[in-house]
């Protein structure tokens, strides 16, 4: 071989051949993405932002696992550098330089070291969260390419030749062409699909420092509502599912997976991939707990959800929409959007809500409250308190949005504490009373977009009649809907969580709490406040202002674990082996704190419902009131 073509041309030629093969494989894959629906993508902006999104946003997530972060930097950096340098050696001046080949040798050696790091996660024993299957041969291919490349380049650098060269080159070719082949439906797909996904991300706002978490409104005039089959997703969503690298970080974060409910976010995304592509290799990660194997038809037009289809409905309804998987995903996949799209089709076109959720959603539609309770009874909790209706005055400095928690006797205590604090601080506050309908959060997370939009329009029309400067609510679900999702329906409000307002009042000196140093507390972040809205500091600052001994749970802030109360999960009630709130209270018990501070009616109800609880459940407002009244 070397007799009629110099090795300094064959070796770079191998890299060019790899690139050509990878391109062919990507093109074959891209044909599948094209079956998806159209989506507006700002390509130029996305491509320009690609390096920043990768180096800042992706790295921020990857770096949570220090080993994986180092491993990826070494192996991916080495692979790219070595391949690029070798490809450039097609230029004769470079090909003739021994120093250049020494540089190539170093790059390949770095790749080889990285390949060993990749292999160490899988051999002799694979880490539990990783997928096996084709991912198991990835370190072998990497190592073959890197070692073959190192030896070949080294011999070129030394000017040595002879009998060994065809073997080292053959080793590099086997590994390198194998890697390029894997770009279509193997592990290396994540590199190409991931890069394109970063440029064409359906939620570009999340790279610009704002929590881009509001569900997109559904056009209720569309021919088909929601996603029934892979082709119903937009093409860049299909692309995003292809970028999944099966690392399993999502399944570790998923509360439903931990509770043994039949949901595994990784498996769900892989089922969407496998549903799109009938030739996809078999899934080789952890299954849906207690779930069944994927079955039924596959292909862009195959039904995805059904007792006899790829994904069982119980999997779909287990999701609490807590976004923990999205927060942990290094490939920036939006799992919750996929779940809601699939739910929308089930609810709007098939009437296939879970049996137990039908009642609450029907009452929500007919009576404006999921419990079918009289709207006028929402203020019953405030009996004896001075809580004016805004209807009698037309305006107020602060409109207090009560939410569904107001009907709950336990949460009524929290709201009473909040109202008393606001009164004590002299805040001009009023409520809508019987004019306040539910925000429709439950219906929206369960996919009943029609009911949500009707409630949103009704609430926006009600709010338009009154003048107020801010809305304050103690319910993060209502906060998220009002602040982030109502703007699409013409309602633009400044919405503040009660903990943020209380902190403001403390800092302004309007509330003067005494300290309660004898109490030890751990704060449980509500998903819809921390992950959906990025607010983790105000509640902690209020607790610190009271002088409590505050300890953090292992999972806190934006990485906190869900209480199990979101996304309609309590009304869907999919059976599991354990209960999510039990798991969370066990985590709270590990801190040894006597009080679990909460800031959400759902969390209060879920955590207080745990049997054999060792810690008390107190809302931040209740603790603050105790501290303020301790001074009297």
């Amino acid at each position, binding site marked *: 071989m070397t007799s009629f073509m110099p090795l300094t041309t064959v070796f770079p030629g191998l890299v060019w051949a790899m690139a050509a093969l990878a391109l062919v494989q990507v093109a074959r894959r891209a044909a599948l993405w094209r079956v998806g629906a159209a989506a507006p993508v700002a390509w130029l902006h996305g491509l320009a932002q690609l390096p920043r999104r990768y180096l800042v946003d992706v790295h921020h997530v990857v770096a949570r696992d220090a080993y994986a972060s180092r491993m990826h930097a070494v192996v991916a950096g080495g692979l790219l550098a070595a391949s690029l340098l070798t490809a450039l050696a097609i230029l004769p001046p470079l090909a003739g330089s021994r120093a250049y080949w020494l540089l190539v040798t170093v790059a390949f050696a770095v790749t080889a070291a990285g390949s060993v790091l990749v292999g160490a996660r899988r051999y002799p024993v694979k880490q539990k969260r990783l997928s096996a299957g084709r991912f198991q041969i990835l370190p072998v291919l990497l190592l073959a390419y890197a070692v073959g490349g190192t030896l070949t380049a080294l011999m070129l650098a030394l000017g040595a030749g002879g009998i060994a060269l065809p073997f080292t080159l053959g080793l590099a070719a086997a590994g390198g062409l194998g890697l390029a082949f894997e770009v279509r439906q193997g592990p290396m797909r994540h590199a190409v699909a991931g890069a394109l996904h970063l440029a064409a991300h359906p939620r570009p706002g999340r790279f610009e420092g704002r929590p881009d978490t509001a569900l997109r409104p559904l056009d209720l005039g569309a021919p088909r509502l929601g996603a029934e089959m892979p082709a119903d997703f937009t093409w860049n969503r299909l692309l995003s599912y292809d970028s999944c690298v099966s690392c399993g970080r999502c399944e570790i974060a998923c509360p439903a997976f931990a509770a043994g409910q039949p949901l595994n976010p990784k498996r769900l995304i892989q089922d969407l991939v496998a549903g799109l592509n009938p030739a996809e290799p078999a899934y080789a990660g952890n299954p849906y707990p207690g779930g069944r194997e994927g079955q039924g038809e596959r292909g862009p037009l195959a039904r995805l959800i059904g007792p006899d289809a790829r994904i069982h409905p119980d999997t779909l309804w287990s999701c609490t929409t807590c976004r923990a998987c999205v927060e942990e995903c290094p490939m920036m996949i939006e799992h919750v959007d996929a779940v809601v799209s699939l739910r929308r089709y089930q609810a709007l076109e098939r009437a296939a809500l879970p049996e137990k959720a039908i009642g609450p959603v029907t009452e929500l539609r007919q009576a*404006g409250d999921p419990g079918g309770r009289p709207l006028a009874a929402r203020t019953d909790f405030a009996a004896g308190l001075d809580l004016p209706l805004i209807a009698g005055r037309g305006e107020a400095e602060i409109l207090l949005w009560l939410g569904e928690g107001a009907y709950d006797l336990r949460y009524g205590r929290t709201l009473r504490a909040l109202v008393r604090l606001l009164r004590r601080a002299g805040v001009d506050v009023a409520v809508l009373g019987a004019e306040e309908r539910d925000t429709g959060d439950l219906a929206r997370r369960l996919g009943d977009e*029609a009911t949500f939009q009707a409630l949103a329009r009704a609430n926006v029309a009600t709010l338009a009649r009154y003048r107020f400067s801010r809305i304050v609510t103690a319910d993060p679900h209502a906060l998220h809907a009002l602040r982030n999702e109502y703007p699409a329906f013409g309602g633009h409000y400044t919405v503040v969580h009660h903990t943020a307002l209380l902190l403001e009042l403390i800092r302004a000196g309007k509330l003067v709490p005494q300290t309660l140093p004898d109490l030890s507390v751990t704060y449980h972040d509500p998903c819809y406040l921390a992950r959906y809205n990025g607010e983790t500091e105000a509640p902690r600052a209020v607790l610190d202002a009271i002088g409590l001994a505050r300890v953090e749970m292992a999972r806190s802030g934006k990485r906190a674990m869900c209480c199990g109360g979101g996304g309609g999960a309590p009304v869907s009630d999919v059976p599991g082996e354990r209960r999510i709130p039990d798991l969370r209270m066990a985590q709270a018990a590990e801190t040894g704190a006597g009080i679990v501070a909460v800031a959400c009616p759902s969390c209060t109800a879920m955590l207080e419902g745990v049997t054999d609880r060792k810690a008390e459940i107190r809302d931040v407002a209740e603790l603050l009131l105790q501290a303020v009244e301790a001074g009297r």
Partner: protein
Amino acid sequence: MRIAVLLSAGRHPVSGAAVLPRLEAQAIRIAAGLGTPVGLHAGPDAAAVADALGQGLSRIAHVALPEGADPVPVLAASLRAMAPDLVLAGRRGQGGDESGIVPYALAAALGLPLIADVVAVAPGEAAGTLRLDQSLGRGALRRVVVRGPVVATVHPDAPAPLAYAFGQARRGVIEPVAAIVPAGPAAAPAAVEERPYRRRPKLVKGAPTGGSAAERLKAATGEAGAAASGRLLVDPDPDEAAREILAYLRGIGVLAPPSPRPNP
């Protein structure tokens, strides 16, 4: 099987919003399990029952009637034309301009049997028959096999309504049907006095006032009480059965005691 479900413009018991009454939504669920039912509504506006299109019906026949007109003659005429094997209705109204009397009046006008308070309907073993499960309260059921057509009213213990699906609702059709007979005169409003319903305490007749709670419960629920004193007649002679029924009705004071002289 042809099935008609009578739909009425009800009101939500709490919010007062115009809704499909729950019993009728349950009737649709029963009907949807048997075939492709058609809704039938007589009233001024079909929008009042359009929700039924999202809860399992794909077609509603609407007979336009002026406000307050008696719907029974036009419903009866429409049902005669449709000739369904089964007519399902709710057992009572739900707050709107409707009445639980309508199914009875329709059954009388059509000369059909009425089976009240059904919770399940299935085709019978013999062709043309229906097997209906009637609720007798407290979970007790009675299975009835009838040869159709038949009018049946639905009991709240029937399976819960189907979910409302917006996508299905927008595909459903409301077909205007011309009234075959002229609408009857509006019911004289002065003839009936309307009062809001007030829940009244229920007296258990013959319940012991003293004794332990367990004894009172026993008396109220059977074993020693009125329920235990009944007699079960299996396949009785019709004359004997009639005598027993009359004796029972006289015993509880519904019928006057027999007059000493037989009527001429």
